[in-house]
């Protein structure tokens, strides 16, 4: 009996050994190019980030990031296959190579990044989420301090509950938590007027609000109580792919910083071609130098990205901007020179 058991154990160790060792042989980027399409893991169930529209296509911020990757890697933003994944499945899918990369509201943290944890490599953060507060516009509450001695609806037993407690304790203000089992009940409690404010992740607040009868009657406060940096990720140990992903996201930021949009990309390209002295722009758009080649992409990858998805600001406004169905104030998601956190190192 024991011998059989040892046999099984050795066999399964051998198998897992195979899995681990065969990851690093070839870069995933080469595979993507050879296949001529990108397989992108998305959630498919998050309003504004990735969802199925009525035509049966995926749409949202996470989806557009995938399209940008596809435009850079295989030259066509349409050559991307979306695979809907649940939170439980996502890391297995990436480890087994079922998907090339993950663009699915994944919070960047130490244990997911480390080789002893989920062993992922994260691209730059594409959305800084965080816990926020939503109040009725008519209540004249503008900041956290205004909520002192008022009641707040919160999901019980979550980090959400802990974060709100920490935030009020830090300012030594009293408040009345009203606890519910899950988010839907929190929303219902808030709408019935049981509390002056409700708290959850800001993206969830915005999504919940767009389902309200009069979304304009509710505002999300600017206070952010926790850090939820959401970033695309790929399997660890593949520098070629992770470098390419990193610089695609940086290109989206840099394009917004330089004012290059989907509409004016061709003009900018002409401008750069006609003016040899505009070195930084020429390098960025791949007219001069070999920046693309260094990360395994065509030199004009930035042009292809911007032409197909627009810059970061355009992507954001399309899905989460003030005129979209799920408006979320940009706040931390502005480019660094507008007071946000999105910063790209120079394209040199």
């Amino acid at each position, binding site marked *: 009996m024991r011998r059989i058991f040892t046999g099984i154990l050795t066999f*399964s160790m051998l*198998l*897992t050994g*195979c*899995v681990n060792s*065969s*990851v690093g042989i070839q870069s995933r980027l080469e595979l993507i190019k050879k296949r001529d399409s990108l397989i992108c893991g998305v959630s*498919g*169930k*998050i*309003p*504004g980030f*990735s*969802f*199925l*529209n*009525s*035509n*049966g*296509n*995926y*749409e949202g911020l996470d989806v557009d990031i995938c399209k940008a990757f596809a435009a850079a890697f295989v030259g066509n933003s349409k050559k991307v*296959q*979306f*695979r*809907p*994944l*649940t939170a*439980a*499945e996502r890391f*297995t*899918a990436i*480890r*087994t*190579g*079922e998907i090339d990369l993950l663009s699915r509201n994944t919070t960047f943290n130490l244990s997911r990044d480390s080789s002893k944890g989920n062993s992922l490599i994260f691209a730059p953060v594409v959305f800084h989420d965080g816990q926020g507060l939503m109040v009725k516009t008519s209540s004249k509450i503008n900041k956290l301090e205004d909520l002192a001695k008022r009641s707040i609806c919160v999901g019980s037993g979550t980090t959400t509950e802990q974060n709100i407690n920490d935030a009020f304790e830090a300012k030594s203000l009293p408040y009345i938590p009203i606890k519910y089992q899950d988010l839907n009940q929190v929303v219902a409690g808030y709408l019935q007027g049981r509390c002056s404010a409700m708290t959850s992740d800001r993206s969830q607040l915005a*999504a919940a609000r*767009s*389902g*309200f009868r009069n979304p304009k009657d509710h505002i999300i406060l600017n206070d952010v109580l926790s850090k939820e940096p959401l970033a695309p990720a790929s399997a660890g140990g593949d520098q070629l792919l992770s470098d390419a992903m990193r610089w695609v996201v940086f290109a989206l930021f840099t394009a917004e910083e330089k004012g290059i949009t989907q509409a004016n990309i061709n003009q900018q390209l002409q401008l750069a071609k006609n003016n040899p002295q505009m070195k930084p722009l020429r390098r960025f758009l791949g007219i001069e130098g070999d920046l693309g080649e260094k990360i395994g992409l065509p030199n004009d990858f930035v042009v292809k990205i911007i032409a197909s998805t627009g810059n970061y600001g355009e992507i954001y406004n399309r899905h989460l901007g003030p005129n*979209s*169905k*799920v408006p979320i104030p940009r706040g931390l998601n502005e480019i660094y020179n507008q007071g946000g956190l999105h910063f790209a190192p120079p394209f040199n």
Partner: protein
Amino acid sequence: MILKKIKQRAFSNILDSITTLIIISFIIISLTTILKWIFFSANWSVVKINLPLFFFGSFPKDQLWRPGLWMSLIAILSFATLLAPRWKWVPKFLPILWISFAPLGIFLLGGGLGLSPVESRNWGGLTLTILLTSFSAILSLPLGIVLALGRQSELPVIRKASSLYIDTMRSVPLIAVLFFGQLLIPLFLPIGLEINRVYRAIIAFTLFVSAYLAEDIRGGLQSVPKTQREAGEVLGLHPLQITCLIILPQALRVALPSLTNQAVGLLQNTSLMAILGLVELLGIGRSILANPEFIGRYIEVYVWLAALYWVVCTLMALIARHLEKQMALEKRG
């Protein structure tokens, strides 16, 4: 006459009258609110606009005829089974047609042999639900029969192995088996070899359901008197012939109601795959609810899904009852 009967049945004394009135008013109130909601308050645009999604998932637009054809074939086959028992050739062909329609579904959906291939991630909606159900059912029935026979075998190794398998599967929750199929199987496989997620789900369902089917069939086997086997032996039949020609047909007839039960349960259990990222009927409903245009339309979508499940399950139950009646007729005749 009728009035008299009603009076006698429902209003014979004060207590009866009060109960009747309460029940009637309750029915009227709930019916009016429900109907009012269905026809006036509910906004069915979410269902109307996304109708192709509910039925076929995100299948490529120009290839929609493939799942469409498959679904209509199933509908035709169901009605043919229900309505046309008179023609002699129909009962002969129907079982073959029923067994072949699951592989046909894989072919029509997946492509190959002249049809352009469509990745399984584009399969979805009711089509995927029915595909999962039918394929798992067709695969688990023979496996269940083998397990049931194995459990009654005289060879201790086979008997013990079958019992062990059945008992293990029955003591593990379905969702754990499904998680195993979706998360662990791919980790055990070498990197190049990838089993499609839909097939992984079918394998997990088959492994699980066959254990339950085996127990149902065992119940049927035990209802067949021992004398039948002895009679077969006296006639000089081979043990295999006895099992296939004498024991199994009788056992399956007895087990049919509980087999139907399993099939309906299986159809409803496929909705668990929504938790595991397959966009079958429930999964597609949840994806559609994430579309900002339809946020908050939970009730409409779930009522619609419930109606769809109800229609499909009722159809299955009707077919099974029809089959039972026919078998009873055969027995008598």
